[in-house]
């Protein structure tokens, strides 16, 4: 059970780390985050079905495409509400979410689609457990990307600049860091990570225009548990969520229905007891 919880946390952390980047660096809580994930999933599906590109191999193309799209969305809309009240930022991304979802419905209809990757149902026996190959791959990749992102943030000039901007805009700009460029980059990266998470969904599951909201909500929960904008706490928070969900689903009768409640209840309790998050 532990292993199931751990495995699913991979996808969660990949989804949330992007959102945490957007919240942490730019201060934008993006309600359309899940829609970028959905677009990434469709891109992965389309590349697989039309060109036979394995979603794993397609990651660079997909990430680049969603990065550009995210960047464009930032330039056209997000940039204009940076100083606006929080409510307006929230609503803008709401509008964006409705827009992107319905665009997807028009482009691809609402039907769920499945990319039949050959190893979709493969499993590996590890000791007494059998673990799904795609889940393992996704978990491994998600961890690699999340840790990779930490490495970029911790080890490169641009990454450090992002952290600096996140912690103190004024201080960063006084060091010659172009804050607006960093925002653009962070938002693009945030959406690109969501896009990659989406392609990983193509790998394991099916794709439809409606998959976004669920992941937006999960990412919110994880961010709240980690502490809003705390990128470092995301992995732990994903584990907390993944494990608590799996635990409830397994040990509580009718647990599948309660798992969702657990996750919202967790948000509520964390916000009321430790509004700054569990992991800082």
């Amino acid at each position, binding site marked *: 059970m532990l292993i199931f919880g751990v495995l699913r946390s991979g996808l969660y952390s990949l989804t949330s780390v992007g959102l945490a980047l957007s919240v942490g660096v730019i201060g934008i809580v993006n309600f359309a985050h899940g829609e970028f994930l959905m677009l990434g999933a469709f891109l992965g599906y389309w590349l697989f079905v039309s060109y036979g590109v394995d979603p794993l191999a397609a990651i660079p193309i997909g990430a680049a495409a969603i990065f550009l799209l995210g960047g464009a969305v930032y330039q056209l809309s997000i940039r204009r509400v940076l100083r606006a009240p929080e409510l307006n930022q929230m609503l803008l991304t709401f509008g964006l979410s409705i827009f992107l979802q319905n665009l997807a419905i028009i482009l691809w209809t609402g*039907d*769920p*689609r*499945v990319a039949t990757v*050959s190893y979709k149902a493969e499993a590996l026996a590890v000791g007494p457990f059998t673990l799904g190959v795609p889940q393992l791959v996704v978990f491994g990749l998600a961890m690699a990307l999340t840790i990779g992102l930490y490495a970029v943030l911790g080890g490169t000039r641009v990454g450090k600049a992002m952290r600096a901007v996140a912690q103190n805009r004024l201080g960063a700009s006084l060091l010659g860091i172009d804050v607006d460029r960093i925002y653009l980059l962070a938002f693009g990266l945030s959406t690109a990570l969501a896009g990659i998470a989406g392609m990983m969904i193509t790998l394991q*599951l099916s794709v439809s225009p409606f998959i976004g909201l669920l992941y937006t909500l999960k990412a919110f929960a994880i961010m709240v548990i980690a502490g809003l904008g705390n990128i470092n706490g995301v992995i732990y928070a994903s584990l907390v969520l993944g494990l608590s969900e*799996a635990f409830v689903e397994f040990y509580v009768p009718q*647990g599948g229905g309660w798992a969702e409640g657990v996750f919202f209840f967790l948000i509520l309790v964390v916000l009321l007891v430790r509004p700054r998050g569990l992991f800082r």
Partner: protein
Amino acid sequence: MNRVLRGVLGLLLLAALAFAGTSQQVLAQAGPIKIGAIIPLTGPSGPSGQAMQKGYQLALDEINRQGVLGRKVELIVEDDRGDPPTGAAAFLKLVTRDRIDVLVGGLQSSVSIAVASQARQRPILMAWTGAASPLVEQLLAEADWFFHYHPWQYNNADSTWSFIRSTGAKTATLAIEDGPFGSSAADEAPAFARNYGIAIASTETFKTGAPDLTPMLTKAKATNADVLVFVGFDQDVIPMATQARQVGFSPKLILAAPPGWPVGYEKLAAGNYVAGMALWTAENAAPASRRFVQRYREKFNEDPTFYWAPLAYTNLITVADAIRRAGSTDLNALVAAMKATSYEGPIGVPLTFKRSIYGKNQGFTRLIAFQWQNGKQVVVWPSEIAGGKLLYPAPYGR
């Protein structure tokens, strides 16, 4: 004062809207026969509703080739968005502004109830495709003008458990989504399972759209049941099929009942040998079904994936037929004609309307079972329309 004034002005706007409406009121005349359809074109049920719209188009093409009572049939489609208030307003618009003669369509139970409560005050022939919830049936028990095409939930359950019985299975484990779709299936299951002599080993719920069903499947595996009965939506069958394989859960049969199957499912190796319950499948061998599929392909350049398309087709065709037989659009004549319906269409089972437990006019009451065999939905039950044999136990990994 100024603010109040402005608020009141807002209400005035409403009034103005209403006024504009009356002034352009059009009198019904001996033009086309008007049929209104209330279906969800947007929102999460949009795909099913859009499939219905295509079924209606095919039917309409056919009907208008010769017309009805010497008149054309005009279909006015209203999107209910899956929202009861919108459905109620759409009903009134169709009935009072468009002056429709018959109402068709319908999908969600909540919208059906909102529409039906309006129809009680303005009786009209409601040839209704949607809603499997017995709550709807009970609410409309007295309505003579309400014709229900879709099987009720207990019809579905009866077919499902009767089919399971036919396989020789002794035990089953249930996995259901936690929304209205799954929970109503769970409500019906125990009685029918008992009736057919099958023991339910466990019932587990999951949240539709959840990416990871392994905890639930692991629990199901531990029950060692012969059959896994899976009630979820289209997207849920993918993690169900793949993750069941991953956790090494291979019951003798997996039986799923989603409203539709994801595009591309046929290519999914792990999905092989999964059985499905449906009102209809594209592999249905009935000649009317084959004709329907072919015409659907010709017109829309794609395969029908939802049974909602042939159901809607059947819906409109039978209504047109009833009008012809009634010789007018008078409600009483229409009801009588509808009651006399006997139609062998693409669904593959003859359609007639009979009393159900509460309702007066129930159409289809039985589902068929099929099994995915190498990318094809092979109909395996009931035997009179079966196109192949059920592989039981499913020969996984062979």
